[in-house]
């Protein structure tokens, strides 16, 4: 599925890189430890996290992730927003907690890193 379709289906609010939502996601990874995401996420994955620090954009850029969804209504820090725009990394937010969001993503056909 494309990020744009997920945004539509899950009613996500896009906070950065609105012009880069046509990428098809390869799966998802949920973690709040940046080092863990560096080690285990796969290219084209959507990353689900509650971390809002600008380093999340660095991690997403390094791992060539499709985008980041912040859960629990968490808003990115200003530096994070700015960096996400510069690096063209889609940054979405939702009020849903991580467990619920991941469940919904699975229902929409987005699997984990193995698929």
């Amino acid at each position, binding site marked *: 599925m494309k990020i744009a379709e997920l945004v539509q289906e899950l009613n996500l609010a896009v906070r950065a890189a609105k012009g880069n939502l046509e990428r098809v996601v390869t799966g998802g990874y949920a973690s709040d*430890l*940046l*080092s863990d995401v*560096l*080690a285990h996420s796969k290219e084209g994955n959507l990353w689900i996290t509650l*971390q809002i*620090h600008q*380093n999340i954009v*660095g*991690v997403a*850029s*390094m791992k060539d992730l499709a985008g980041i969804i912040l859960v629990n209504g968490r808003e990115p820090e200003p530096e994070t927003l700015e960096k996400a725009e510069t*690096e063209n990394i889609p940054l979405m937010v939702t009020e849903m907690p991580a467990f619920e969001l991941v469940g919904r993503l699975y229902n929409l056909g987005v699997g984990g890193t193995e698929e």
Partner: protein
Amino acid sequence: MRKVRADLHLHTCLSPCADSRMQATAIVERAKKVGLDMIAICDHNSAENAAAVVKAGQRAGLAVIGGMEVTSSEEVHILGLFDTAADLMYMQDMVYENLPGENSEEAFGSQIVIDEWDNVVGKNPRLLIGATTLTVEQIVDSIHRWAGVAIASHVDRERFSLIGQLGFIPQGLDLDALEVSRSCSTVLEYDYPVVTSSDAHFLDDIGRRSTCFMIESASLGEIRKALRREMGRRIAGN
């Protein structure tokens, strides 16, 4: 006994997230200008610029302590301050052996190694922004093994802090102090000395926060005594 104003947590241009102007002579100049008697250099997971700033400090008459800010596997930041360059290098070896990954300048920034005159002598290729595979306990033990002072960084922050990452301070953790980035009430329930530091990544941040010690001289040994309230040494405020 005299008042020594210390900012024990400064980064240099070696930290990928720090400003490239954070160089040895500029840091020392700025520290003196804002009235600091003592600083400590704590870059992320590396101490390769510490000696340069120590030497620049010796030239200018500013006490500079070499240290590093180590990232645990739980992504908790712990400061280690050391008396000697040799001890600091032992700690750095230990960190390097347990720090996976290579830096991406585009993603995280450059990691510039300088000499005491601010000349660029190289770049550190390691993923200094990353986490080591060491636990908080292992890091604190290692710092003490090499006679260092272990301080949990910015415990009032949500991210990269001992309380933020682990929810509370693990019982029995042998820290010498907690660092806060501003006055905060949450640490008062813990039985550790509290210091305040700037965690400066930019020249203008140096000395924005600092700690006043009543000690005999501006040395790490005296700071250690003050943290333990030994022989009349003490923390005299922020």
